[in-house]
């Protein structure tokens, strides 16, 4: 490890003008490093125990067959067999498709609506501060409260949503969570509802950093609202948009709580996305090696998509 001399004097620097010799760097740095390590020890131990150990365990387990109950002695090395089986598993591919649909619809929708809301809340409208807080509330509410509320709202016979649809003349309203066709769209609606406030808040902070001199110049040139958005606002928001797309996509690909609470992956396997499929495989079937392999493949897939998104935005930002 490299330790910087605490006085800011480079290691091995000549004696100062006062003529006092600078102490050797190591003798100064070592006690301070010791104290530093003590300060970060709690976090370091926590990260090691609860992040690094599980991370390494998952990698190692993905090459084994293990059912947990048999104890560590029951771990059997199977090489790449789990990975081969993952790619042959129709349940895995079903969950990949569902995850892509879930993330592929909910993330762009959340981003677009978040942008629209951010732009609206950036204007000088009455009650702006209260509105910002209201739209952000779903993001901080417990997933259990969200799940139970939407479960009631979307009840096929007595829920408010279908009552409104009925009043609007829709006779065959969807059965939502009790339909394999509508359960995933219903989850997407909840995900978008819960994420829009967060996206709007991020956009708001970016909008407030927008270069005002460019807008003034555009006004002098007689640019319209759309032109200003297209050539100034949007390019300045590209890094924020990419950040949102990446973080929301990662979040969507890890989404578990709502599914576990509301649909348990059903009806049938209509909402068995990758995280829930991993849970079923690991914690219902106790196939921990196989579940770890699914986790590894998922991680690599999300990483690849994240890198692709990142590369795609290069050169498109205003300040690049």
């Amino acid at each position, binding site marked *: 490890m490299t330790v910087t001399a*605490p006085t800011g004097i480079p290691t091995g620097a000549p004696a100062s003008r006062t003529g006092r010799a600078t102490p050797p760097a190591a003798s100064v740095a070592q*006690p*301070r490093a*010791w*104290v530093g*390590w*003590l*300060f*970060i*020890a*709690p976090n370091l*131990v*926590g990260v090691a*125990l609860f992040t690094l150990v599980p991370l390494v365990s998952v990698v190692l387990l993905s090459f084994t*067959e293990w*059912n*947990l*109950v*048999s*104890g*560590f002695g*029951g771990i059997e090395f199977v090489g790449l067999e789990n990975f081969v089986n993952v790619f042959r598993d129709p349940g895995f591919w079903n969950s990949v498709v569902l995850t892509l649909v879930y993330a592929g619809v909910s993330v762009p929708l959340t981003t677009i609506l978040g942008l629209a809301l951010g732009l609206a809340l950036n204007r000088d409208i009455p009650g702006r501060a209260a509105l910002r807080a209201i739209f952000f509330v779903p993001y901080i509410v417990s997933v259990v409260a969200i799940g139970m509320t939407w*479960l009631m709202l*979307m*009840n*096929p*016979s007595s*829920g408010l949503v279908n009552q409104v649809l009925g009043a609007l003349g829709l006779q065959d309203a969807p*059965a*939502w*969570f*009790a*339909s*394999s*066709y509508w359960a995933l769209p219903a989850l997407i609606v909840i995900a978008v509802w819960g994420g829009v406030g967060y996206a709007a808040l991020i956009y708001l902070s970016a909008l407030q950093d927008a270069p005002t001199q460019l807008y003034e110049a555009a006004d002098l040139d007689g640019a319209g609202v759309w032109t200003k958005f297209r050539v100034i606002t949007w390019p300045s928001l590209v890094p924020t948009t990419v950040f949102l797309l990446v973080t929301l996509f990662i979040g969507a690909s890890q989404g578990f709580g709502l599914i576990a609470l509301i649909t348990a992956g*059903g*009806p*049938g*396997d209509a909402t068995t996305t990758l995280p829930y499929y991993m849970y*079923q495989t690991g*914690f*219902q*079937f*106790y196939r921990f090696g196989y579940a770890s392999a699914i986790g590894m493949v998922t991680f690599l897939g999300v990483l690849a998509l994240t890198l692709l998104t990142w590369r795609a935005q290069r050169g498109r930002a205003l300040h690049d």
Partner: protein
Amino acid sequence: MIGRGRAGTPTRRQFLAGCAGLASAAALGGCSAGSGATPPNTLNVWGGVPPGSGPAALIDAFTAAHPGTEVAYTRFVNDDRGNLKLDTALQGGVDIDVYFTYQTKALALRAESGMTLDITDRLADEPELAPFLDRDNPTAYWDGDRVRALATAAEPWFVLFNEAARERAGIPLPTRWTVQEFEEITREIRADGMFGTYEVPDSARIALGPDYWYTPDGGSNFSDPHFLEWLELGQRMIRDRVAYPWTEVLARNLDAYQHTAFVSGEFATWVNAPYSLRYLYNEKDYPHDFRVAAAPLPTAADGTGWNQGQFNNFIMINPQSPRQDLAWEFVRFWVTEGSKHMAVGGKIPTLGNVPQEEMLTSLLGPDPDRWFDVGSFRRVLFEERPHLYVDSDLTALPEITLAVEQQQDLCWIGERSPADSIASIDAQAAAAIDRYRKAA
């Protein structure tokens, strides 16, 4: 920036920081440590029944009968998370001597993974436990020719009738009926705002009995026509609004809260087990104004049939236990002298060693005549001796259970035909069994 004292001497602030860091690290490290060695005269028992519902009294009786011994009872919730907690404790070396298994899929995993002590020879030395060695009417879990667990309770299923609805419809209480008659009677009993039944009986289980998901050679048995008939029966009765709409069951997560819908009069008959009776005399939490009677489970068309309930609540000894003799004595006590204490919580002992009337009082609460037709329960639970069993083939049981539940949902919400659902279950079960055989 942190200040320094004299060369090499940490300041008081540095010292305190260091202490805090070390203490935190030590505390985190201590998370994985055990709670220390258990004294040799103390048994650690893990069960799913709350201590106040029988285990505490049983343990008091055991320690009184065995002076110098102590029992530490740990309760786990009998759901996926609670069973995972027990399994991680077992494989992590937590000091557990005796534990319970309630879910058949958990029994499969624990028995196959060597987490259960072979108690065959100990059983053979106890004449009063001879019924557990009966292979024709098994009440223990057999792994090949070895006994790994004893079922401590019988859980016969029955059909509960809302008596107000039955009397209004003028239907006599069935004392012997077929599945077809069940369909006819539940059609008759339904009324405005009240379905005829919550769910249809498991007619395939009634016809086929133990290990009904497996052929005699261990393959998938879902091509047996009884499975198709069961799904058809359910879909037909739901479509005709005789059985409770499955969309509502899913949308309200009603499976765990069926009792609330029964006491509020949403359906007139309820296929269920003794553990649900406690809701029906709990006037405070589940107010209702009707009495309940019991009819036996319907039989197959030829009048024969198994019950869809089983001998359950398996007690098992951890092979890692250093106190196996004491653990066995506890197991023996639980299923013999101790069973009367569990009867208070509604557990019908496997050995039938609690007097019938005492058992009825336990099951039907302090004022049974107010809430129940007591005679019907006496007849259904005890006099007619329901035909119970223990499954022994548990291959790929968790996977098959999920496949059955998923396809049952799709079929009963009307999105999939019974034939397609059965074909899908059959294919998934065959693939899961095949994978387990290859891994074995």
